[in-house]
C-alpha cells in the first residue's frame, strides 16, 4: 500500500510540475496538433511524425520538453489517422486501417459527426487505459527486470526482432526475419562494444561510431514514404460531415464495455515487443466481431466495430512504452523512434532507467490524451480542411524537414548520405514486401544483443548451457525456438492436420 501511495505521490508531483509550467502547453498543443495533422494526411504516419520531431528537437532542448513533443505527436498521430478513414475511406495511418471498415459507411449514412465524436472520446479513453497499465505494470516488470541478466537480455532482444518480423510481414514470414537480420547486421558496423575491434568500416572513419539511429530512422521511414507518395493521385470524394461532433455521453456509457475491452487488448498487443498499433487495431476488431452482439454488422457501419479498432490503437501506445521503458525494447515502430530520441538524449531505457522519467512519461501521456481529446472535439473542422492538401504538396516539405533533421542531430553531411542510402534500400524492400519495422528494431537492439550475448558466454566460459540453466532464459529460449519452429512446414503440418480434424 505504501508503494502504491508513494507512486501516486510521485505521479502527482510530476503532473503538477508539468501543469504549472506554461511552456508545457506550448509544446503540448503544438505537438498534438502536428501529430493529428501527420496522422490525418494519408502518406504520413505516426512513426514519421515521431521520427521527424526527433530530428527537429534533437538533444538541444531539455529532455522533458522533448518527451512532451514526441509523446504528444505520437498520441495525436495515432488518433489523427481516423479522419481520412472515416471521411475518405483511406486510412491515414496503418493503425487506422480497420477504422475505415465501419467509419466510412457511418459517414456515408450521415453519421460522420457522431463517428468522429465517439472515435475521439474512445481514443482518449484508450490512451488513458494504456497509460494506467503503463503506470501499474512498469513497476511490476521493473522489479522483475532487476533479476534479468545478460542471457535473458540477449534472448529478449532476439525475441523482439523475431516477433516483429513474424507479425509485421505482409508476405512471407522469412522476409520479416531477413529484414530483422539486415537491421542486426547494420548494428554490427563500427567499433564492437566489448573489445573495440573495428567491424565493416572499410577504412572510413565516420563508420567507426556505427550507424547513427536518427538518420537510419529518417531513411527507413521518411524517404520510402516520400518516393512512394510523389505521384499523381485523384483525391477521393470526401463525405460531407453531418451531425454534431460533441459525443452523446449516454452513447459513450452504452459502448463503455467495448471501449474497455478494446483498451485492454490494445495495451496487451502494444506490450509485445515490436508489434505496432495496426496489429492492435485489427486484433481488437477481430475479437470484437467474434464476441460482440453486433458482430454481424461489422464492416457495414457498426459503432462497435469502429470503437474496437480506434480504442485499441491508441491504448497500444501505453502498452508499447512498457517494454521500451523497462527492457529497452520498443513495443512498436513509433516507440523505436522514441528510443532513438532517448538515446540521443543519453537516456538508456531499461532496468537502470531513472524512475522519475517513467513518472514524467505517464504524466505527459495523461496531458497529451486530454489535449488530443479537446483538439479533436473542438478543432475537428480544421483537420478536415487539412485533409484536402494533396500529398505532392506536403511531401516535398517533409523531405526538407527530413534533411535538416538528419543533419542537425549528428551535425554531419555523412548522416545525410546514410539517410539517403538507407531510404533507397528501404524503398526497394517495401516494393518487395519486406517489413521495415523489424529492420529498425534490429538496428536499435543489435548493439544490446551483441554485447549481452557475448557477455553471457564470457561469464559462463563459453558454455551455451547459460541459456538454459537460468529459468528466465530457458523460458525465453523456448519462446524463440517455438517462434522459429512454428514457421517450419515439417513441424506445422501435423498441427494443421490435427486442427482440421478437430474442426
Amino acid at each position, binding site marked *: 500500500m505504501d508503494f502504491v501511495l508513494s507512486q501516486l505521490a510521485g505521479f502527482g508531483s510530476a503532473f503538477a510540475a508539468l501543469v504549472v509550467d506554461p511552456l508545457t502547453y506550448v509544446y503540448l498543443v503544438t505537438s498534438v496538433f502536428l501529430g493529428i495533422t501527420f496522422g490525418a494526411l494519408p502518406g504520413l504516419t505516426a512513426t514519421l511524425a515521431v521520427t521527424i520531431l526527433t530530428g*527537429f*528537437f*534533437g538533444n*538541444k*532542448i531539455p529532455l522533458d520538453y522533448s518527451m512532451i513533443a514526441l509523446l504528444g505527436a505520437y498520441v495525436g498521430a495515432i488518433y489523427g489517422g481516423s479522419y481520412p478513414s472515416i471521411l475518405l475511406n483511406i486510412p491515414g495511418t496503418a493503425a487506422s486501417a480497420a477504422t475505415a471498415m465501419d467509419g466510412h459507411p457511418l459517414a456515408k449514412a450521415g453519421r460522420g459527426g457522431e463517428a468522429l465524436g465517439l472515435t475521439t472520446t474512445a481514443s482518449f479513453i484508450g490512451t488513458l487505459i494504456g497509460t494506467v497499465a503503463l503506470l501499474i505494470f512498469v513497476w511490476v516488470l521493473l522489479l522483475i527486470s532487476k533479476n534479468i541478466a545478460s542471457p535473458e537480455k540477449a534472448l529478449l532482444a532476439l525475441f523482439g526482432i523475431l516477433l516483429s518480423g513474424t507479425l509485421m510481414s505482409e*508476405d*512471407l514470414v*522469412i*522476409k520479416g*526475419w*531477413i529484414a530483422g*537480420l*539486415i537491421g*542486426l*547486421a547494420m548494428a*554490427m558496423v563500427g567499433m*564492437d562494444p*566489448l*573489445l573495440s*575491434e573495428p*567491424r*565493416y568500416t572499410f577504412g572510413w572513419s565516420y563508420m567507426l561510431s556505427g550507424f547513427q539511429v536518427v538518420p537510419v530512422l529518417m531513411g527507413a521511414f521518411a524517404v520510402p514514404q*516520400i*518516393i512512394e507518395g*510523389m*505521384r*499523381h493521385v485523384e483525391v477521393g470524394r470526401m463525405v460531407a460531415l453531418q451531425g454534431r461532433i460533441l459525443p452523446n455521453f449516454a452513447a459513450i456509457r452504452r459502448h463503455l464495455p467495448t471501449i474497455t475491452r478494446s483498451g485492454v487488448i490494445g495495451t496487451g498487443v502494444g506490450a509485445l515487443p515490436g508489434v505496432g498499433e495496426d496489429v492492435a487495431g485489427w486484433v481488437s476488431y477481430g475479437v470484437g466481431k467474434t464476441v460482440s452482439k453486433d458482430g454481424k454488422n461489422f464492416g457495414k457501419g457498426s459503432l462497435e466495430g469502429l470503437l474496437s479498432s480506434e480504442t485499441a490503437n491508441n491504448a497500444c501506445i501505453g502498452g508499447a512504452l512498457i517494454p521500451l521503458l523497462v527492457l529497452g525494447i520498443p513495443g512498436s515502430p513509433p516507440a523505436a523512434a522514441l528510443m532513438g530520441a532517448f538515446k540521443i538524449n543519453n537516456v538508456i531505457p531499461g532496468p537502470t532507467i531513472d524512475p522519475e522519467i517513467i513518472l514524467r512519461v505517464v504524466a505527459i501521456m495523461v496531458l497529451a490524451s486530454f489535449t488530443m481529446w479537446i483538439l479533436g472535439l473542438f478543432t475537428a473542422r480544421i483537420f478536415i480542411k487539412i485533409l484536402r492538401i*494533396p500529398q*505532392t*504538396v506536403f*511531401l*516535398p*516539405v517533409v*523531405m*526538407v*524537414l527530413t*534533411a*535538416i533533421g538528419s*543533419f*542537425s*542531430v549528428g*551535425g554531419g*553531411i555523412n548522416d*545525410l*548520405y546514410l*539517410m*539517403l542510402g538507407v531510404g*533507397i534500400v528501404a*524503398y526497394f524492400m517495401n*516494393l*518487395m*514486401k519486406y517489413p521495415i519495422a523489424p529492420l529498425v528494431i534490429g538496428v536499435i537492439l543489435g548493439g544490446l*544483443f*551483441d554485447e549481452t*550475448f*557475448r557477455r553471457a*558466454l*564470457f561469464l559462463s*566460459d*563459453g558454455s551455451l548451457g547459460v541459456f538454459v540453466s537460468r529459468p528466465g532464459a530457458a523460458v525465453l529460449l523456448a519462446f524463440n525456438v517455438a517462434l522459429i519452429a512454428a514457421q517450419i512446414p515439417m513441424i506445422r503440418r501435423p498441427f494443421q492436420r490435427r486442427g482440421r480434424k478437430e474442426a
Partner: protein
Amino acid sequence: MTTNDHLLQSETPDRKTQLILRTRDFWGALVLLGLSAFFLWRTSFIPLWGENRAGVKGGDWYNSAALVPWGIFSAMFVLSLVLLRVAIREGGAKRAMSSVGIGWDRVEALRFTTLAVILFFYIAGLVPRVDFILCSGLLITALIYGYHSGHVARMVLAAAVVGFAGIYAMALHLPRAAWAQHDDDWLVFALWIVLTTWVLWSERGNRLARVIPVISVLAPTILVCAMAFGFRQNVPNRGGLIFKQIEYQYYVTLKPFWSGK
C-alpha cells in the same frame, strides 16, 4: 511475349501480384546470397579464435567480435536459400528474365529514376555546397511541379533542373575546401527563378501554381531559422548566400535590438 508471360496475363490480379513478387524474390534472394557471402568473407578478417596480435593473445572465441556477425550472416545466407527455393518452386525463376514477369512498368521506373536523381543531387550535391534555403526552394518547386500532375515530361524537366545544379556544384566544388564558394548558389538561385517563372506562366489560372513559390520560400526559411535560432541546432551550410545574411542581421541587428542594447 513468352508463353509464361501470356499465362501471367491471364491470372487474377491477386495471383498476378503474387507471381510478380516471387520473380522479384528470386532476384532479391540472389542479391542477399551474394551480400551474405561477401560479408561472411569480410567477417573472416575479424579474429575469431583468439589470434595473437603483436605478441598479445586476443580473447577467446566466445568473446570474439566476429561471433555475432558470423551468426547473423550465416542465418541470412540460409534464409536467402530458403527464399530462393520458395521463389523457384512458385515459378519465379521461369519468369526472371522477362519484363512482364518482374512487373516492369516503364512510367513507374521513370518516376522512380527521376526522383532518385533529384534526391541524390539534392543531398549529395546541393545541401553541402549551396545555401539551404535556395536549394530547398528549388527542390520543393521541382518536386511539386514535376509530380503533382503525373506528366512524364514534367518529371524529366524537374530532374534535369535539379540534376544540372547538382552536377555543376559537384563538378566545380567537389572537395570540402571548395564548398564555401558562391557561384553555385547564384546558379541555383537563377534556376529557381526560371523554373518558378515557367511554372507560373505554363500553369496560368491554376491556384496551386500560385501557391508553389510561397511554400518554397516560406517552408525552408522558417525551418532553417527555427532550427538555427530557436532550437540552436546545426544547420547545413551556414556560410550560404542567404543564410549568412540572415545570421548576420539576427546577431548584429535583431538581437541587440531585442535586448535593448
